[in-house]
């Protein structure tokens, strides 16, 4: 059993489990959407006093904040008790393409060039991470949802707006990957 959990999960089992999360939340009377938490956190920090968009009763979103806390714990458990000894099975084409950009793959989850403490010694890393986060936060609220709200919940409910948002995710992602990143790195 534990070997079954610690090996990297197949795409079909992973996909099944994500759909299961959505169904569990639906049966609990909630809608799966993670980025709503970012708005809730702004409201809790007092943003509702001056900006109407944040003026709502954040207590209605307590369940989602609990879900967020759980996701951090889940990440910790996965890293410390369920991690696989083998390296991430990344495509060799991706490894080579990234090498050309100066980003090395050492089998880990994320590149040291962006996420190691050594990388944080460079101001450029801070600018990249801050800007990237800003785009995700701004864009997900502008589009009214992120991967969970649109790609999973929205598409499952056959929402055309969610399909348009997902197309937008790819326009942005491809632009960043093929046009901006070669200039950045």
């Amino acid at each position, binding site marked *: 059993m534990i070997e079954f959990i610690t090996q990297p999960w197949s795409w079909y089992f992973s996909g099944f489990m994500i759909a299961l999360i959505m169904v569990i939340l639906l049966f609990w009377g909630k809608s799966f959407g993670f980025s709503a938490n970012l708005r809730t956190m702004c409201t809790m920090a007092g943003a509702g006093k001056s900006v109407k968009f944040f003026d709502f009763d954040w207590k209605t979103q307590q369940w989602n904040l609990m879900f967020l806390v*759980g996701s951090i714990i*889940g990440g910790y458990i996965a890293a410390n008790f369920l991690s696989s000894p083998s390296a991430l099975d990344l495509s060799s084409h991706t490894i080579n393409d990234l090498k050309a950009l100066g980003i090395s793959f050492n089998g880990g*989850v994320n590149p040291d060039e962006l996420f190691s403490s050594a990388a944080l010694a460079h101001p450029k890393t801070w600018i990249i991470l*801050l800007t990237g986060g800003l785009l995700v936060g701004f*864009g997900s609220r*502008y589009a009214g949802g992120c991967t969970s709200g649109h790609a999973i919940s929205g598409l499952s409910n056959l929402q055309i707006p969610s399909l348009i948002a997902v197309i937008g995710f790819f326009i942005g*992602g491809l632009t960043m990957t093929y046009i901006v990143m070669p200039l950045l790195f």
Partner: protein
Amino acid sequence: MKLIKYVFAGILFGIIMAKSEAISWFRIQEMFRFQSFHMYGIIGTAVVLGVLAVFLMKKLKAKDVDGNPIVFLDKDKQYRKYIIGGTIFGLGWALTGACPGPMFVNLGYGYLAMLVVIFGALVGTYLYGVLKHRLPH
């Protein structure tokens, strides 16, 4: 204490995101470079099963645990916000390799640098709230 079950659902979600490797910056790059089926398989499976589940829940008029009907709200039909907002989101997703959920899962995984990304995302969310009225929707 009624809220504790959501912590457990979140823990399960965090483990799924980590074990599926959907939290990996490398996997997101691989996806945007169309060099592996992995991420498409995950999202595709979730959506196909999700469509089936939602269809059945509507058909059977399913009720939630409190006995209330499960409602599926239609997203509002202002199309510019989805394409513009989605594109901005995609730029950030490819750059940081993390959408909002995986940002926090990665933090728990031990990538403390994600705090910088999370801070950026909070600032971005705040800026949207401030600028909302001036943006095309």
